[in-house]
């Protein structure tokens, strides 16, 4: 059977969801901000180390300040949520733990990953120690702009959700 997994990008607007999506799928990046309305969906076929092919169906959502405002139907049938926040804007991660709890409660079977994006704008070491202090757990720090950690993140995720 064909292997297909649905992954949803979540998080406030302007954090770089669309940029990560475009970087991973088409290897493109633009400085211009273009609002995402509703959802854009793209498929990326990934060759797994064991030879299988995975169709990763990525849903890039518009992003809301309140996680509860996300349309419920967008989240249906998901295998993973990627919660993206902007490392330079504290209000995009101040409710992180609350939002993650909400997602975990309503979608207990879905893998949840947290990305801090725009790594190119901050000092990595300082940021990590700050997060440690504030009890914020991040799975990956990325830069859609420089492509840092983007491919690796998605490939690791692919492995995890097909294991």
């Amino acid at each position, binding site marked *: 059977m064909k292997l297909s997994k649905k992954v949803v990008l979540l998080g406030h607007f302007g954090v770089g969801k669309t940029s990560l999506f475009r970087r991973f799928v088409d290897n493109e990046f633009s400085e211009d901000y*273009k609002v995402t*309305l509703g959802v854009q969906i793209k498929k990326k076929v990934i060759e797994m180390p064991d030879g299988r092919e995975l169709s990763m169906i990525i849903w890039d959502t518009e992003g809301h300040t309140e996680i509860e405002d996300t*349309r419920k139907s967008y989240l249906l*049938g998901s295998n993973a949520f990627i919660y993206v926040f902007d490392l330079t804007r504290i209000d995009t991660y101040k409710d992180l733990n609350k939002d993650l709890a909400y997602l975990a409660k309503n979608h207990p079977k879905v893998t949840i990953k947290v990305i801090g994006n725009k790594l190119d704008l901050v000092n990595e070491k300082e940021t990590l120690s700050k997060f440690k202090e504030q009890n914020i757990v991040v799975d990956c720090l990325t830069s859609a702009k420089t492509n840092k950690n983007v491919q690796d993140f998605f490939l690791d995720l692919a492995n995890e959700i097909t294991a």
Partner: protein
Amino acid sequence: MTYQEERLLFNQKTQCTVVHHDGKIKETDANIFKWKVGTSIYDAHPFFEILNSFIEIFEKEETTYSFPCIHLEDEKIEKICDITLKVNAQEVIILLFDYSTKYHELNKIAQQKNESILKSKELELKNQYLLEKEKFKNSFISNINHEIRTPLTSILGFVEVLEKTKLSFEQEELARIIKRQSLHLNSLIEDMVDIAKIESGKIKIVDERFLFINLMEGFKETYSKLAEDKGIQFETYIDPNIQEYLIGDRTRVFQILNNILNNAFKFTEEGKISLSVTKNYQRTNKLSINFKIEDTGLGIQAENLENIFERFTRFNEDKQVSGTGLGLAIVKDLVDLLRGEIKVTSQPDQGTTFDIKLPFKFEITKSAPEKKKKKYSLPESKKKFRILVVEDEESTQFLIMKVLISHGSFFVDVAINGEEAVSYLERRNYDLVLMDLKLSKVDGYQATHIIRNNYGDKVISEVPIIGFTAKATEAERDKCLRSGMDDFITKPFEQEDLIYKIVKQIAKKAAL
């Protein structure tokens, strides 16, 4: 509601498609997308892969799922649709409602709204960053100032000592250069500290009564001499209607005018410089004075005139003309602090004119005579006077010792902290204590407190004490005097100044 009814309800372009559970298209009206019967819906758009998961969990009842605002596209068209999926035992009905127009309008609004939020956040971030940097810079400057002043004191002091030794002509010249450069460095530090203080709001404007006419005469005297040396003219006019005594911040007024005059002299090689001081207006006890400083110097290009009050702007690349590039920025800051106004006009190669308006107050009652800087001399009762220097830095110790010893009237002992100082005082009679304030163990203030309060023996408890510090702040001065010191001197000091203060205190004590 059947899909046909729904189609009627929304007067939108709709498409109805029926697919088998394996994804094969059974029928479609191809109203929007030209899908073909028999092909797989999964190939039409990745959105439809979601069907898989719904079919997997399907049990018995027909289930409806609706998805608003989904971007769908094929090679030819792009639409933003609301999609309804009805999953039943046999098939899946897919309804597309094309709301592209409506969504594109919404898109514009959202774009504007989000963009403005992102922009303002970006600005906020930048401002915050700048503020933090500014704050760091200011505290950095005041701290580094302290660290630089102490060695600079030694350099300046030793050069003065060096100048008094037998030097060859060449050595003399070199010593002069060292001195000039060190003094320049010193003024640069002072300028930076001033700027940092102004920016962090630490400069307090004081209202003191002072002999205005004296201040002006001082300028006249100093700069007439300079003009003579340079072979240019210096003219002054002081409006006789201005009160002798004014109330204002004498130090800042001096700093402002001195800076501008200094500049005028720096950039004028021939011709004339004039200072004219006139009364602008007077109301009850307030008056505004206009200071006009005109020169026939190099002048400033029009395009440079705009930024002249900004930091580190120097338009003259002439290496002969020294300056920190901070002077005019400080002047502007100070004029603002005093709630005055400053204007500059200039013609290249013709000269520059600064117009400064400053507000003052005056006492309506008759003015009292002013205290002059009194001359003091050491009492004749003794040949030599014993001074205790409390200082932990070797180079400064050494320097003070040299200055005092070469004066010829003093014996000097050195203690390296407050504790040691107290034990010295217990053992010997001293005529004066020079006390550094930043000491290990017992600091200068504490030591002074102990000396003043813990001894019945007046020789100890009333010994004159002069505080000695690298921090030239008002607060520091107050702290010294409050802790019981008689006077205060800042590093780096002028040798003359140090001697004057020592002699003054000893003379005062003897006169009691």
